[in-house]
């Protein structure tokens, strides 16, 4: 089971879009995929038409379970329109975890432990993070093998990236491990010089860690989210989807070698 976290402390950079689109593509490859929504705003859950406030259980129940086992996790899953794609939805209640757990040792490892129980059930787990450093993001990052960091190709976003990378550095130190980090330039508009400049700066500063492609600006992503369908299904021939497919190929090649 491969576990990826999609994280960036900056908001609106394409985390949820990346999670959904890669998840859709993987499911279309026939992989068994679990998408975990760790954002109290529940935009990933909403993307799949799940009204998180109507649910009886969610990832919140995993976080507060007295004792974790496979059923606790499996009971919370929602199916999607794609056969092999499941969602572990979020709820607003997640927002209270920072207060109730932020003080307790070991509370950053709950998701990591929970995922051990469903290792046999899925080929890929993708976790969408909130744009905030806190218990939820720490859990996702601690549980994953690979971190995807979407970053908008503009100077303001690069500044936020620096902060994100520094957080990861500290976590590497405390967890005594190295993360596999892939920075993904998103919403790239090749007609805008500032975007080209920002992309160059990104390559210059983070060279090796930056995926060598870009995700272009593509209005189909917004259309797809309105249709509550992964863009890979909604608009399989869109440029943006094509770019994500290329990204996925790179990630899968790196993972197997």
């Amino acid at each position, binding site marked *: 089971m491969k576990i990826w976290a999609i994280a960036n*402390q*900056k*908001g*609106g*950079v394409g985390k949820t879009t990346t999670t959904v689109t890669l998840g859709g593509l993987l499911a279309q490859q026939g992989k068994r995929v679990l998408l975990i929504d760790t954002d*109290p*705003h*529940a*935009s990933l859950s*909403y993307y799949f038409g799940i009204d998180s406030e109507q649910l009886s259980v969610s990832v919140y129940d995993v976080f507060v379970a007295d004792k974790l086992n496979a059923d606790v996790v499996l009971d919370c899953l929602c199916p999607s329109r794609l056969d092999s794609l499941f969602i572990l939805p979020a709820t*607003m209640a997640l*927002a*209270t975890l*920072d*207060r109730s757990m*932020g*003080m*307790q*040792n*070991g*509370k*950053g*490892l709950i998701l990591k432990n929970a995922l051990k129980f469903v290792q046999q059930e899925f080929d890929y787990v993708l976790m969408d993070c*909130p*744009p*905030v*450093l*806190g*218990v*939820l993001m*720490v859990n996702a990052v*601690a549980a994953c093998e690979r971190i995807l960091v979407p970053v*908008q190709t*503009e*100077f*303001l*976003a*690069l*500044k*936020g990236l*620096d*902060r994100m*990378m*520094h*957080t990861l*550095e*500290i*976590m590497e*130190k*405390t*967890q005594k491990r190295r993360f596999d980090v892939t920075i993904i330039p998103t919403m790239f508009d090749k007609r805008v010089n*500032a975007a080209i*400049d920002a992309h*160059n*700066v990104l390559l*210059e*500063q*983070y060279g090796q*860690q930056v995926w060598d492609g870009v995700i272009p600006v593509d209005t189909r992503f917004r259309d797809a989210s309105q249709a509550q369908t992964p863009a890979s299904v909604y608009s399989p021939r869109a440029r943006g989807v094509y770019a994500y497919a290329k990204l996925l190929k790179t990630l899968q090649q790196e993972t197997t070698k």
Partner: protein
Amino acid sequence: MSKGGAFAKEGLMEDYLSSLLDEGPETLEKDPVAKLIESVPLQVEIEQPDVIEPVQPQVTTKDIAEAVDKVNEEQQAAEAHHVASASLQETLDDEFQALFFDVAGLTLAVPLITLGGIHNLEKVNPLIGKPDWFMGVMIHRDEKLTSVDTARWVMPEKYTEKLAESLNYQYLIMLGNSAWGLACEKLINTVVLNKDEVKWREAHGKRPWLAGLVKDKMCALVDVDQMISMLEQGLGSNDL
């Protein structure tokens, strides 16, 4: 890549993360997050995403997360006040990143930690009764950004009508947390600099906004806080 020290409360940050990630038996005596929260005022709002967000539910308790997130901004603010006494040279890490940009053939650099952001220059509304280098106010998401005609401010002696006509301002480089922005023609790049690569100027000299010269590029490194303070007082670049 980030050159250390990105968080003011680096130690607290490490405590926070290592307690969350502690695999050992639970102990409750240590309470780094509480410490962190005490050290950070909570009223400041979270950084807003640049893109329209889905409807936001009424999230009530993100305080800790916000606190952690705020540490950086606090630090920047703290540094900003600091600079009045400490020089930019003392404030910066040995290695720091700077954004280079162009105005009328002149290259200027600002350290990224003092960069408030970059905007595309849009419609600027002039105000009367202001110094000539005051281009006007640009509205960006209900915020009023005051644009400075950088060429005119930095080199009034070279500012001719011909130069004025040739200027093609495209971006606004925001200074620190202030509403002041320098109009610029071209963004060049962001470069990691070592302090040794800068020829620092003596403190208390004329033109305090000029922190030094980036040696191999022969361009001016801007002391953003000093510049803000001069702009606030309506001073030109040579007026001190």
